[in-house]
C-alpha cells in the first residue's frame, strides 16, 4: 500500500504535530507546508517527515478526518504569517523606497518595500503579495475591494 493510500491521523503534542498510521503506535514528528505559499496558498499541503523528506502531498485537507483537519489547519495557520491588508493608511516614496502604513487583520503595520518589480507580486490583476525588505509578507486579497483612498495611496507606491 502506498503512503497516499494508508490512513493516518495528525496529532498535536504541545507545539509539534505528529503523524500516526492507523493500526500503528508509532508517531513521527512532521511538518506541514504549502508547496505554493505565495501563488496558491490554501491548495495542496505537503507533509514532511524526518530528514526533510516528503511523506505525502494532499490535494486538500478534506481528505483528513475532522480531528486531523483541525490540527492541520491550526498548524498551517501557525506556520504561515501573512497579514491581510484591509486599509492603506498612507504611502510615501523616497529614494526608490516605498514606505507603507497599513491596517491589517493582525493590526497596524509600517513596512518598506524596495524593487517593486520583484517584491510586489500580482495575481489575476487583483491579489497582491507585498514582501518587505526584511522578508515579511503582506497581502492585499482584492485590490479592487479596497476603499478609494486606500487604492489612491497604494497606487502612489506601486
Amino acid at each position: 500500500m502506498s503512503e497516499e493510500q494508508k490512513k493516518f491521523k495528525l496529532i498535536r503534542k504541545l507545539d509539534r504535530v505528529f503523524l500516526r498510521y492507523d493500526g500503528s503506535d508509532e508517531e513521527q514528528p512532521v511538518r506541514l507546508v504549502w508547496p505554493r505559499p505565495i501563488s496558491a496558498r490554501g491548495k495542496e499541503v505537503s507533509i514532511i517527515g524526518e530528514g526533510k523528506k516528503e511523506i505525502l502531498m494532499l490535494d486538500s485537507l478534506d481528505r483528513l478526518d475532522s480531528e486531523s483537519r483541525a490540527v492541520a489547519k491550526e498548524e498551517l495557520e501557525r506556520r504561515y504569517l501573512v497579514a491581510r491588508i484591509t486599509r492603506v493608511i498612507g504611502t510615501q516614496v523616497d529614494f526608490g523606497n516605498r514606505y507603507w502604513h497599513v491596517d491589517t487583520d493582525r493590526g497596524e503595520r509600517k513596512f518598506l518595500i524596495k524593487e517593486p518589480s520583484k517584491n510586489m507580486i500580482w495575481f489575476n490583476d487583483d491579489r497582491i503579495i507585498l514582501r518587505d525588505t526584511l522578508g515579511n509578507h503582506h497581502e492585499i486579497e482584492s485590490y479592487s475591494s479596497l476603499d478609494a483612498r486606500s487604492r489612491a495611496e497604494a497606487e502612489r507606491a506601486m
Partner: protein
Amino acid sequence: MKLNDILPKQAQASLGKELEQDESVLYSLRSDLSEDRQYGDTYLVATARRVAVLSEDSVITVMPFSEITEIKVEELFSSSCLVAVTEKGEKCLIYYSKSFVPEFAVFSRVLNDLRENRKPELPDEHEAGHCPKCGSQLPERGASCPRCIYRFKTLGRLLKLVRPYRFKVILLVMMTGVTVSSELVPPYITKELIDHVLPHGYKHQLFFWIALMAGCFTVFLGSRLIGSSLMAWLGARIVSDLRAKLHRALQQLTMSYHDRRESGQIISRVMHDTAELQHFLIDGMSYFLVECVQIVAISAILICLDAKLALLVFVPIPFLVGGGAWFWKKLIPLFHKQGTRMGALHSILGESIKGVKTIKAFSREKSRESEFDGINEQLFGIRYGLERTFVGFSEIMFWIMRMGLAAVWFLGGIKVFDSGELTVGTLVAFAGYMWLLYGPLQWFTAILNWMTHAFAGAERIFAVLDSRQEIYDAPDAISVPEMKGAISFDDVHFSYERGKEVVKGISFDIKQGEMIGLVGKSGVGKSTIINLICRFYDIDSGSIMLDGHPINRIKLEQLRRQIGMVMQDPFLFNASILENIGYGTEDAAFADVVRAAKAANAHDFILDKENGYDTIVGERGVKLSGGEKQRLSIARAILHNPPILILDEATSSVDTETEKEIQQAISRLIEGRTTIGIAHRLSTLRNAHRLIVIDDGKIAEIGSHAELIEKNGIYAKLVSLQSELSKVRGDIWQE
C-alpha cells in the same frame, strides 16, 4: 549588541511576583508578535534561572532552565519562533516576525548559555532592521536611514574630500562672486542709460556705459568659463577619488557583506551613485552656488532701489517656491514608476534576447510580445503624464512670473506718473532684476531635490566605506611567513545568518602533509569548512588553529597566500592564459609558468591555441572548456606552491578522459602538501589518508575508506548508492 529592551511597568510588576528575591532580569527583548500572532509587543526575558514571556501587562509563560533541554529557533513563513525543547515535547515560547530574526538568534544562544551555566557573550555588532532615530524600516539591515539623511553632514564629508584641492575651491568661490557681480551690473547700467544718458544725449557717457556693459558681459563669460571648468574638474576629481576608495573598500569588505548583496547592487553603488553625485557636483552645485548668491544680492539691490516695490516683487516668491515643491511631490512618484517600468522592460528585453532559443523552442513569441507590449503601454502612459505635468508646471510658473511683472509695471508706472519717486530707468532695472530673481526660484525645489538624491547616493557610498572591513594586519597579528600545514578545529560553530547554524561544533586535527576528504550530502557544511580555513568568515565560537596559531591572529595576507584553491568553477580573469596562471605569483619566470602548466597537463592544449600563452580567455574564461579552465586553475595552484591545498569538486564538471588528465595533475600537485578535498564522486577521494563525513553540520564519521566501509555507516551507504547509480547509468547506455 544589547538585549535590554525596556519592559512595560505592568509587565515588570507581574514578573516581579514570579521571581525570587535574589533573582533579577538579565536580558530582555521585545517581539512584534503576540501569542496569537497578532501585531503587538511581547517580551522575552531571561534571569539566571529561568526564561519568561510577558505581554504588555502580564506574564504569559515562565519556564525554569532545569526543565529545558534545548532552546532552538523554528523558522516559519514570514515569522519564526523560539522553541523550548522539554521532556514533555516542544513548546513555542515566543513568535516574532522576520524583522527580529538576528536579535532572537542571539537570544537563543544566550538562553542556551544560561541554561548550561555559561557566561553569555553578546556580539559587538548589531545590524538593526529599523532606524533607531525615526523607527522606519531600513532599506537593508545596518543601512543608513534615507529619511534621516542629514544633508549638511553628508556635505561635510564631501567637503573633506575636497581638502587636498582647497586652492581650486577658493578660486571657484572667487569666480562665483565675479560671475554674480558681472551679471547684476547690466540692469543697473540700463537704469543709468534710461534715466541720465539717453534723455540728455550724453554721448561720451553712452560710450562709457556701453563699454562697461560689454566689459561685464566679457567678465561674465570669462568667470563662467573658468568657474564651470573648475567645478567640472573638482566634481570629476572628487567622484574619481571616491570611486577608487569605494573599489578599495569593496576588495577589503568581509565575505558576508558580499553574500548579502547582489553584484549588480554593488556595481550600481560604484557606477550609478558616483555618476549621480558627479552630475550634481558639476552641474547642480555650480548652479546652486551661483543662484544662492544671486538671490541674496538681487534682493538687496531691489530693496535699495525701492523698498516698497521690492516687497511687491517678493509676493509671488512663495507661489514659485511652493508651486515648485508641490510639483516635485507630484512628479517624483511618476519618475519612480517610470524607472520601475523601464526596469521591467529592460528585463523582458534582456530575457527575450538571451533566451531567444528557449522562447522559439516553446513557441512563446506571442506571449513575450504581449508581455512587452503591456509594460510598454504602461510606460507610454507614465511618460505622457510626466511630460504633461512638466509642461503644465513650467507654463504656470511663467504665468505667475508674468503676473508679478505686470503688477510691478502697473504700480511702478503709477509711481513714475504720480510722484516721480521712481524713475523710468529704475522701473526697467527692476523688471530686469525680477527675471534674474524669479528664474532660479522655480527650480530651487528641483535643485534641493536633486541634491537630496545625489546626497542619498553619497550616503550609500559612505555606508560601503564605513562597513566592516577585513583586518589584514591587526596590531597583535602573528607573522607566519612559511606554514607547515597542520590544521586543527576545536568545537567550531558557525552561521552565515544568525539563527541558522551551518557548522555545529566540529572538532578535528589534520596533520602536515595529510590528505583529507570531506564527504557528505549537499548543503551539510563541507564548503563552509573550507571557507573557514581560508578565513573568508569568522567563526561564531570555538577555535581554528593553523600550525598551532589561532587563525584569526595570523596576518590575513600571509594566511591566504599559503592556501591554494582549485574550485569546481574556477574564476579566470579576462586576461591572457599567462596572466591567469601567474595570478598571485606575478614575479614568476615564464619557465616556471610552463613547468606548472606541464604539471597540470595544460601545456599541450595551450600550445594548440593560435595565440598560445597569450590567448585571452574571455570574461570568466568563457572561451575555454570546463576541463581547460580546471587545468589552468591547477597550474595556478602549482605555481603558487602553497603548503595547504583545497580541492573543491575539482573534477566534477569534466568528461572521463579529461578527468583522468586532471587527476594526474592533481596527484602531482598534492605531493607534500596538506590537502583537503571535496568531491561528490567518492572514488576520487579513495586515496585520501582519512575521510571526514559531515552530516547536518556535525562530524558523523572519521576514518580511511576501508575503515568507513567496514563501519557500514553513512559513508558506506553513500558509496553503495554511487555504485548503484553507476550501474543504472551503465544499463541505460547499454539499452
